[in-house]
């Protein structure tokens, strides 16, 4: 196993040997051989092609008519026959004529047996008598059907129904009138209610507005003091802020305020009345100086008027003035300042009085008595007390301001805040706060009152508004109903249901009565018509009997004539005895016929169904009888229907002449159609599997063989055709060459060659 495998591998993997030149030479030889072969095959294929290419004959389309020629054979027949009546049951005694024999009028044809004839005549007589009697019977018996008199009763019923209808209409009208009145009343009432509701609503609106305005006014009044207090508080806070700023920006160092009891200091410096005047004077002046310094600290002592203060003071002082004004009120502050000034002046005068007294004593060299000293001191002290009393509040305020100012400059923020609160509490005391609170409470109360008032009045107005809308709706509804009444579009059906139903019932009754009347009339009419019809039938029967009678009479008369003629039957007209289906000695059964032909003939022939369409009544037919060479021209006078065998019988009347009845003749008919623009030979038309007609047209085509003739298909619509040509509709041109025949089967796309014979 290993060795073959190894061999295969060696074979496949051995070194490539240089190719010998045999491949090149082989390729060269093959190439040359190939071209030679191709040359040979070129010739062969051309030769084969020349054999296989179909040769065709062509024709061009042209404008022409279609010619139809019909020919064939037919028979000449007599057109009219005169039949001779035969008596059934009669025996034929002898026959003198022969079928096909030409006879003249009056020639003897055959003879009946007389006895048989007489028997038949007797039967005829009896029949005649019976008919006569029946006729009499018919004349006598005439009866009518039932009489017609239902109309009257129906008319009465109708009149009653119409009366009921009129009554029902009246009731309905009355009901409608009542409704109209109600609607008018409702409209008036609704209008009134609406007006009242509208007034109430407008009144409510006005009252509401008035009450609310009043409430608002009271509220505004209550708001004023609150605003005033708030404004005052804000001004106070602003004054305090300004004071703080003034302190912070002032270069003046404020001392730590200490509360002094000046009155005690004055008491403590109670004058020793017994001391010398000079010492007393010194003590007095010392007290006065202390007091002055105190007054200066009060500051108000140096304020004479606001205007004076504002023009002379620094920022700190202005801030203080502002605070004082906030504390007292501006006018009060001015008044207070004047009182203080007055008290100070009085105190000054008391001091001056003492000094004057003291000076007077010095001039006189006298001494003040103790009483005088005491009196001066008392006067001064009283004035001082009153001034102190007057400045009690100022003292407190001043202390608080000083404390605050000192705190601002020296103390912590908490202490500043504490001193600020103390100052603010002094300025905005409880009483004032109470007043503010009261004013605010009053304001809140007024606000509540106003809200309640507004709410109450809103409810009132809403209620009035609802009433108004309701009244408006009712009014609109009433108005609409009224308008419907005026426009005559109001629907009374709901309210007048019962009256209308009664009216409807009455109407139906009236209609039924009318129908019944019609029916009664119709029935009466029918009855009359039936009676009339019966009369007519009777009359007709009578007439039939009369005719039968007459006929029988005639037959009897003929029979009697025949009997008188000894049973001989003669030819009534001249002509050919066509039929004589009798036998001598035989009885007439009723199926035999004896007839003579009048001297007019017709030519009858049959044509196929597809040929019938070419024929029309009046067309000329050339008829050539069998034994004649000369043709007879006749015209078609009738064309029969196509029978089950697809044939149609055609006849043409022959001119007067002698013809052999039943003889055969040939015919020829020539017909032309109208002019057609496109006619082609019939053999050019082909049909495919889909029953579509087409032709093959030869056209030049550019192929690898150059310009060759190829057959192309062109569909055509065949309008009409005769036996050799077809009239078509197509897209062909007059120069197109249509293949009409070929030497082999060809199809579209095949190469062809045209050849002429």
């Amino acid at each position: 196993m290993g060795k073959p495998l190894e061999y295969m591998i060696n074979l496949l993997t051995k070194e490539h040997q240089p190719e010998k030149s045999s491949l090149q030479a082989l390729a060269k030889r093959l190439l040359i051989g190939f071209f030679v072969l191709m040359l040979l095959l070129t010739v062969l294929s051309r030769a084969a092609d020349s054999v296989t290419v179909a040769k065709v004959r062509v024709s061009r389309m042209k404008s022409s008519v279609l010619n139809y020629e019909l020919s064939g054979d037919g028979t000449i027949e007599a057109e009219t026959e005169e039949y001779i009546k035969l008596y059934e049951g009669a025996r034929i005694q002898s026959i003198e004529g022969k079928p096909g024999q030409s006879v003249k009028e009056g020639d003897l044809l055959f003879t009946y047996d007389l006895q048989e004839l007489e028997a038949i005549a007797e039967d005829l007589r009896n029949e005649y008598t019976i008919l006569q009697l029946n006729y009499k019977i018919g004349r006598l018996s005439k009866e009518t059907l039932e009489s017609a008199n239902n109309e009257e009763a129906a008319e009465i019923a109708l009149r009653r129904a119409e009366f009921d209808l009129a009554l029902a209409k009246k009731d309905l009208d009355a009901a409608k009138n009542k409704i109209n009145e109600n609607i008018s009343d409702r409209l008036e009432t609704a209008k009134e209610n609406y007006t009242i509701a509208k007034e109430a609503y407008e009144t409510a609106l006005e009252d509401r507005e008035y009450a609310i305005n009043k409430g608002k006014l009271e509220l505004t009044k209550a708001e004023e003091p609150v605003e005033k207090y708030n404004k005052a508080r804000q001004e106070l806070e602003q004054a305090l802020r300004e004071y703080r700023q003034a302190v912070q920006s002032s270069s003046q160092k404020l001392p730590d305020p200490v509360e002094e009891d000046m009155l005690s200091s004055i008491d403590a410096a109670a004058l020793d009345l017994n001391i010398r005047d000079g010492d007393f004077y010194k003590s007095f002046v010392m007290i006065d100086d202390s007091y002055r310094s105190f007054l200066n600290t009060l500051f108000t002592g140096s304020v004479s008027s606001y205007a004076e203060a504002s023009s002379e003071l620094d920022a700190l002082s202005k801030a203080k003035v502002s605070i004082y004004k906030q504390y007292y009120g501006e006018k009060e502050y001015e008044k207070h300042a004047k009182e203080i000034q007055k008290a100070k002046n009085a105190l000054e005068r008391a001091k001056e009085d003492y000094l004057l007294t003291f000076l007077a004593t010095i001039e006189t060299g006298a001494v003040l008595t103790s009483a005088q000293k005491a009196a001066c001191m008392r006067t001064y002290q009283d004035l001082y007390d009153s001034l102190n009393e007057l400045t009690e509040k100022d003292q407190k305020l001043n202390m608080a301001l000083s404390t605050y100012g000192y705190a601002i400059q020296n103390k912590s923020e908490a202490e500043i805040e504490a001193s600020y609160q103390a100052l603010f509490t002094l300025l905005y005391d409880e009483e004032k706060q109470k007043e503010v609170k009261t004013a605010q409470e009053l304001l809140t109360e007024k606000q509540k009152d106003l809200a309640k008032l507004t709410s109450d009045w809103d409810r009132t107005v809403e209620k009035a508004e609802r009433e108004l809308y309701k009244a408006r709706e009712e009014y609109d509804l009433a108005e609409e109903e009224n308008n419907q009444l005026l426009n005559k579009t109001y629907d009374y059906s709901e309210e007048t249901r019962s009256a209308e139903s009664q009216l409807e019932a009455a109407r139906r009754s009236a209609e039924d009565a009318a129908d019944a009347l019609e029916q009664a009339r119709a029935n009466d009419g029918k009855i009359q018509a039936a009676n009339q019809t019966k009369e007519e039938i009777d009359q007709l029967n009578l007439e039939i009997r009369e005719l039968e009678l007459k006929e029988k009479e005639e037959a009897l008369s003929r029979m009697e004539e025949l009997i008188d003629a000894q049973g001989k039957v003669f030819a009534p007209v001249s002509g050919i005895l066509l039929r004589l289906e009798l036998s001598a000695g035989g009885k007439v059964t009723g199926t035999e016929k004896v007839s003579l032909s009048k001297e007019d003939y017709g030519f009858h022939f049959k044509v196929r169904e597809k040929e019938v369409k070419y024929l029309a009544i009046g067309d000329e037919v050339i008829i050539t009888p069998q034994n004649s060479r000369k043709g007879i021209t006749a015209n078609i006078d009738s064309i029969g229907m196509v029978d089950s065998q697809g044939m149609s019988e055609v006849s043409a009347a022959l001119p007067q002449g002698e013809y052999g009845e039943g003889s055969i003749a040939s015919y020829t008919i020539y017909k032309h159609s109208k002019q057609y623009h496109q006619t082609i030979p019939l053999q050019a038309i082909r049909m495919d599997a889909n029953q579509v007609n087409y032709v093959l047209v030869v056209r030049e085509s550019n192929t690898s063989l150059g310009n060759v003739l190829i057959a192309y298909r062109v569909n055509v619509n065949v309008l009409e055709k005769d036996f050799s040509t077809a009239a078509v509709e197509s897209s062909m041109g007059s120069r197109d060459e249509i293949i009409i025949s070929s030497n082999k089967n060809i199809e579209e796309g095949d190469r062809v060659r045209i050849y002429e014979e």
Partner: protein
Amino acid sequence: MKGRKLFSFVLLSLMVIIIWLPIWMMITGSFMGLTELTERVGAVLGYGEGYASWSLLPDYPTLKPYVELLLDSPGFFPMFWNSCFQVIPGVLGQLLIALPAAWSFARFRFRGKHALFLLYIVLMIMPFQVTMVSSYLVLDRLRLMNSHFALILPMIFSTFPVFIMEKSFQGIPLALIEAAKIDGAGELKIFLNIGIPMGTAGIISASVLGFLEGWNAVEQPITFLRDKALWPLSLYLPSIAIEKLGVAMVASVITMMPALLFFLFGQRYIEDGIVASGIKE
């Protein structure tokens, strides 16, 4: 070593099979009847459903397609001869024009040589579609449209043979030429007696490639030839319908034959030419 060779052989065989498979299908298809072809590939051409299939050998081989083409299709042969009339003069003309041009590029020095050669290369690589309109206008002006010369003349003046032959002429040793010059040979003699014989590989390979190019050309005939009587064989094949599939297969085989034989004839020269172009002196 043997293993490597075996592997190389197997790999190359596989590639060859892949390349040869369509050709084998074409050859076997040319021996199949219409029924068998319809069964196998009818689905692809709209006849029936399913997939196309093929077999190595036909189930019912027949020569009917060959007979139909070679004997019953006279239109095939004019197209074949048209191909011959258009390609062979073209190839010969190429030799006439391209040979001296290639020799000049290979052996002479002149101003603008590189630029001119570059132009040749540019023209060589330009596809037909680019020059189609200008070629059409020129041929129309020269009144050569719808004639064989519409294909022959552009082919004669093709630049590709110049490129191939120039490479081949460059391979001729300079010493040989100088020796000839010393012996008194003129330029024409050198060209005819040394250049052409020594450059045979390049000449024949250029001819073969030129023939293949011309034989298989489709765009130029369709563009420049209106009359079907002038169409070459390459235009016979585009119309393939199921009814003519067998004939188309045969036509493909016949069309392939001259090209194949010509290639086999010049194969050795083409290989030598490719080898020569790779070797540097």
